[in-house]
């Protein structure tokens, strides 16, 4: 790693001020993306701002008909929360599939979203459920927030504080893990909301999470795996690498979408 100065703000405002004062500073929460990247010298921020000691930003609660999760909530907390388990069990399951138990004790939802790794799991849930991302400056919808590979709408002094998920009628997330890295080779989130059906895909797209409108329309008519019979996703624009060709990923999307619908229907 290259040298840096470590800062430990006690409030979000202090953290934002540190970002303004130090142009190339990076935020750290769980550190399980930033520390490995710094160890490989792929990033060398001269200032690190530790968010993990700021209190009150890791709560999990129902706010009306929305599930509000603080940005610093750890994956382990979301996975084991009875509130999440009751309101959106698919989200608890998704959190429980991230990394491994030790990683889940550190990783945060805010960190996952701010990083927007194209194989991360949370973006699929956020886009499928139409969640609202609240920062210290404004509220953002998923379509505005996710802007491509490792890119979000967050400004230089902007910090995610909370993510609010509308509660779906039914939902499920199926993750097909890369055998080596255990990240999503393809992950599909299906949600049946009062406003309609959403199908989102992570891992496969070269630009990050995306919706499959054709699947959504078919499932809107009939929320059953059979509704997806014969429907395919074009391989164009999907990732192709040693772990799987674009065609393989396209095929997987169809398979996983059907499994997700079945899983959503099978939930009591």
């Amino acid at each position, binding site marked *: 790693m290259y040298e840096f100065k470590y800062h430990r703000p006690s409030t979000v405002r202090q953290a934002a001020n540190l970002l303004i004062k130090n142009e190339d500073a990076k935020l750290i929460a769980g550190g*399980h993306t930033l*520390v*490995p990247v710094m160890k490989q010298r792929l990033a060398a921020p001269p200032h690190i701002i530790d968010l993990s000691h700021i209190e009150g930003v890791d709560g999990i609660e129902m706010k009306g008909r929305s599930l509000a999760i603080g940005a610093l909530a750890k994956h382990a907390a979301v996975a084991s929360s009875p509130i999440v388990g009751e309101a959106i069990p698919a989200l608890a399951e998704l959190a429980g599939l991230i990394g491994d138990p*030790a*990683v889940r*004790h550190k990783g945060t939802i805010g960190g996952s979203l701010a990083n927007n790794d194209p194989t991360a799991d949370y973006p699929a849930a956020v886009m499928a459920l139409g969640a609202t991302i609240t920062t210290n400056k404004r509220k953002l919808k998923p379509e505005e927030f996710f802007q491509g590979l490792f890119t979000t709408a967050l400004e230089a002094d902007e910090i995610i504080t909370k993510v609010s998920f509308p509660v779906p009628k039914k939902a499920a997330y199926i993750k097909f893990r890369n055998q080596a890295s255990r990240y999503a080779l393809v992950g599909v989130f299906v949600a049946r909301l009062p406003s309609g059906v959403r199908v989102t895909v992570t891992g496969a797209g070269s630009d990050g999470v995306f919706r499959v409108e054709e699947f959504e329309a078919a499932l809107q008519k009939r929320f059953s795996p059979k509704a997806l019979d014969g429907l395919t996703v074009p391989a164009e624009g999907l990732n192709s690498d040693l772990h799987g060709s674009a065609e393989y990923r396209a095929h997987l999307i169809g398979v996983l979408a059907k499994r997700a619908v079945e899983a959503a229907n099978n939930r009591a």
Partner: protein
Amino acid sequence: MTASPRNGTRTKRVHMAKISMIVNGNPVTGNIDPRTLLVQFLRENLRLTGTHVGCDTSQCGACVVHLDGKAVKSCTTLAVMADGHEVKTIEGLAADGAPLHPMQEAFREHHGLQCGFCTPGMIMTAVDLVHRKGHDLSDHLIREELEGNLCRCTGYQNIVASIAAGAKAMAKSDLA
């Protein structure tokens, strides 16, 4: 002396950090380069070499310790972020000369190791697993929960058996 992308030459270290934490029940302090990983602080500053660096990329779990009672990968944790917190390493499971912790004893009895390199991480992960999921652990659950721990010697069979036995034994012991 440290190189930096900003000047490429030898520079004086200007950003040292004073830290203090409780390790295995004892207060410790250090004055360290902020780049110091928790695993380095434990092994090199405190000479607690039971925690191992395996992959150094947060996959293998040889570096697992307990931070505020929860299993974390110390190779992916900065020591400065643990400032003010509590750490328990494999050495902290049982006092020197005292009887082994029930999970350690289970690994001994059920031959849960060969070279022993992954073992401290396996045991620390296992103890955390019992704290989270209780004393009656199915083989399937144990295998899933070992997602973050790799062993190159054993094929995991006896590790799983040791953890199941250790979990039961922990129910009858004061040693958490």
